[in-house]
């Protein structure tokens, strides 16, 4: 579903991504782990072109994202409309939820349906309610984000993305901004999504979640994927010293 090859990206002189190859098949759940500053989030954001990449290809179902290949072999930026149409099919969940604070939970979910999918208000609201029910928040439908806990806000954000019926979902550290006791409710929703066969690419620090839910884990360091494979392989049998060192700090911290 997603094929990335040779993806490179620099912020000025700082090269954040140094030729990344990564693919995600339909219904596959792939977790990206690695130290902070390694380029995980940037890579994820290249998939829906919130971040532009400089070289390489990002393709979704074969279609190049962010650029158009010209007949003479050059590239030009993708048209704004085409880019919007592509983004509709890709759900994204952010670390800081990014709900719209002046809208209730149900409006947050319904607004894209109305403005982007063009649904009538009543139908959008109905679908939004169904989505909120799915993430267990029917009772909070008419609450504003500031009246919801972080975990509830993130579940609303997931419902907002899901309501658009995306073909794949991107999660950018969805639990990193949450109090520890609120992480579980968000991971539960994500687990159920995975079980339903949603294609998911997840940047996360939740190793336990990655171990149990991911089909594959990719470890990224300094702009390169240095190891990837089934969770068992990456988390327990990686031959890469950098991976082992990184995971060791996790084990140390969680051993009490």
């Amino acid at each position, binding site marked *: 579903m997603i094929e990335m090859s040779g993806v490179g990206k620099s912020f000025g002189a700082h090269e954040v991504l140094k030729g990344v190859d990564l693919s995600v098949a339909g219904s596959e759940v792939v977790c990206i782990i690695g130290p902070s500053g390694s380029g995980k989030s940037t890579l994820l954001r290249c998939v*829906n072109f*919130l971040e532009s990449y400089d070289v390489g290809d990002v393709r979704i179902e074969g279609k190049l994202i962010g650029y158009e290949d010209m007949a003479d072999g050059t590239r030009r930026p993708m048209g*704004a409309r085409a880019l*919007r*149409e*592509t*983004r*509709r099919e*890709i*759900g*994204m969940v*952010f670390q*800081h939820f*990014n*709900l*719209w*604070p*002046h809208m*209730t939970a149900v409006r947050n979910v319904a*607004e*894209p349906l109305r*403005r*982007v999918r063009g649904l009538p208000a009543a139908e959008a609201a109905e679908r939004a309610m169904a989505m909120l029910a799915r993430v267990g928040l029917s009772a909070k439908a008419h*609450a*504003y984000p*500031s*009246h*919801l*806990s972080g975990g509830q806000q993130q579940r609303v*954000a997931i419902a*907002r*993305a899901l309501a*658009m019926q995306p073909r794949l979902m991107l999660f950018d550290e969805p639990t990193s901004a949450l109090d520890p006791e609120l992480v579980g409710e968000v991971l539960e929703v994500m687990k159920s999504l995975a079980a339903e066969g949603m294609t998911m690419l997840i940047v996360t620090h939740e190793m336990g979640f990655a171990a149990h839910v991911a089909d594959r884990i990719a470890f990224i360091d300094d702009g390169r994927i240095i190891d990837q494979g089934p969770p068992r392989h990456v988390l327990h049998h990686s031959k890469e010293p950098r991976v082992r060192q990184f995971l060791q700090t996790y084990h140390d911290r969680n051993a009490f």
Partner: protein
Amino acid sequence: MNPDVLWRYLPSLLSGFGVTVLCWSAGGALGVVLGFGLALLRRLDFPPLRWTLRAFVEVFRGTPFLMQLFLLYAGGPYIGLRLSATAAGILGLGLYSSAYFAEIFRGGFATVPHGQIEAAISVGMRPLDTLLRVELPAALIAAVPAIVNMLIVLSKETVVLSIITVPELMYQMQTMAAETFTAFDAIFAMAVFYWLLVEAVSRLGARAEARVTAYMASEGARA
């Protein structure tokens, strides 16, 4: 204090108050609308336009209102702009305050976290919808206290209009003082009227603020 004089001049003071309220509200409304337009135009990625708008703001914020008003009223006819004193006063207040309102709205837009805009982009929302549905409400809400404040400042700037003979409160007060030699009474009467106006504006402002920020008020639930 001379109640008889006050009573005799009450009609003219009241009419002055009416003119003041008219100039203030029309000028303020013009300023808000113009300022909002300026702030929107400044978002366009077209450098010459941005510089022009910036220059406009700098000129109107950087020079005394009295001078602007003189230029408009006395200098206007030279460029074919022949306005009545009241019309010039309203236009002057509008132009002058638009520079401030433009900055207030710009500040409002700046308070909208980029993540909220990214969320709109990520669902494929068009830029216009993103502006209208996501940025604008949040920006306006953030700007309300500063808008109310500016309107209060503006209500007091209206006294300057007396210089170009707009028959507003200050003008009537001066007439009364000159005709009756009761400077203190006249100033006292004017102070009362202004206090009424400012009080009304700030109360309305407080209500508007409470209304638009209601969604942020905590109801015991935690953020």
